[in-house]
């Protein structure tokens, strides 16, 4: 055994295959992130509704798809839904018949359930007085949501959103169980061909690490851009610090 556990020649040779795997992982990250977020908004409104008939199903959705391990959700969609006759003969079989479709459905539902909680937490963090003040100014409810509550909620919830996205990326590593060749699956198949336990997996780890940290850097810039009005304090303001931060921002503009 040589000193370095990595076989550089093998690493160089397997780079293109690993890169293709990374592209699959990126694809399986981006699409469910979009679908999950789109699903999360209506479910979050239902969850926050005062009508039990709306709130209860939404809550059940969140408890189930957040509480169940992603691996089981994936099995459930991939193996379980095929059992339903109507679905097998219906038009949606294009989605549920392919491993990609199943993975995207399972990942999206899981992400949506997490995002409902992130959204709800961020929306609840918006001080009520601000909403009341907007109502007193005669701003329509839609505009209050779009231009007052959401911009503030985004700032409060950005850190939680980042955590969810990062853990989601890492969660996609299981899609190889439904025959998708993502980054993890490529590394595994190289291991099975060469019996080198370190090179392919450590290379895949480097790719994952780079992808995850790219997302972290992106969120940091996003957070900085959202808080550009108080450039000295780039960190996300907590609900309590916000008023102070805004005062500080004004003090700089006034003179």
């Amino acid at each position, binding site marked *: *055994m040589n000193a370095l556990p990595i076989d550089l020649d093998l690493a160089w040779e397997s780079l293109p295959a690993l890169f293709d795997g990374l592209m699959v992982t990126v694809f399986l990250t981006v699409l469910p992130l979009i679908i999950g977020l789109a699903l999360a908004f209506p479910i979050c409104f239902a969850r926050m509704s005062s009508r039990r008939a709306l709130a209860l199903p939404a809550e059940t959705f969140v408890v189930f798809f957040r509480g169940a*391990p992603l691996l*089981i959700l994936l099995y459930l969609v991939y193996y*379980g839904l095929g059992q339903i006759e109507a679905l097998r003969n219906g038009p949606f079989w294009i989605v549920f018949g392919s491993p990609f479709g199943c993975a995207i459905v399972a990942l999206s539902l899981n992400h949506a359930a997490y995002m409902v909680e992130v959204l709800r937490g961020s929306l609840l963090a918006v001080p009520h007085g601000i909403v009341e003040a907007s109502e007193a100014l005669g701003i329509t409810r839609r505009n209050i949501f779009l231009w007052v509550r959401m911009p503030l909620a985004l700032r409060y919830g950005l850190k939680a959103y980042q955590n969810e996205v*990062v853990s989601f990326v890492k969660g996609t590593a299981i899609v190889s169980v439904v025959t998708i060749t993502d980054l993890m699956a490529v590394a595994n198949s190289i291991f099975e061909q060469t019996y080198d336990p370190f090179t392919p997996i450590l290379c895949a780890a480097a790719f994952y690490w780079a992808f*995850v940290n790219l997302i972290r850097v992106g969120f940091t810039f996003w957070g900085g851009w959202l808080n550009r009005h108080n450039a000295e304090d780039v960190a996300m303001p907590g609900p309590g610090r916000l008023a102070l931060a805004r005062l500080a921002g004004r003090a700089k503009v006034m003179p």
Partner: protein
Amino acid sequence: MTNLSLADLAGYLRQLGEGALITLELFFASFTLAFVLGVLIGVVTLSRNRFIRAAWRVYASVFMGVPSLLVIFLIFYGGSAMLAAVLGEFGARIDISPFGAGVAALGIVYAAYIAELVRGAIENLPKGQFEGARALAIPPLIMWGRVILPQVMRLALPGLVNVWSFMLKETPLVSLAGLQDLVAAAKIAAGATKEPFLFFVATALLFIAFSAASLWLANRLEARLDRGQRRAPVRSSAQAEA
């Protein structure tokens, strides 16, 4: 719709039960390892030594930046070679079981998250706690064990609960390394009976039930740990960066 005989069902249920026990064992073993490692690492890396701090940053960044599944595979496939490199001839003869690989991998990964929580909690403690202990000439071991860490646990509890429930949802990953746990048993039963929907939903509900039960316990524990506080302090944002 179901075409299972009662005897068959009882057999599969027994298998699921055995699998659930293995999943629980795996979970408790890895959480204990992660907790002990995490507290140790959290305390040690508060040192001012530049190398220790750099090592902590590398460790945290690596294990928070790669999927747990990858770490499980790395230890399962490469564990023997790693042990051989460290222990020499003796280590090469140790076979890595899926269970051992799972405990080691989940323990190492989640120790990073727990260490981060513990570090945050220690830094949030008033300086006077350390100064007071020193002024009373309390030996360091007793200071950490009886003064600092009990308060740290109170501050870190919400984050620890997060790590706990997140880790629970990652334990099924070890079945991909060949462990015959709850999820593996459910998959076998689903394939053999052609009733995947039933078995996977039942498995999911088991996880949710366990998670709910432990959340209830955590709330009780939190109330107990907070009994010395006049009112619940504002929770610092100590959520695990999962």
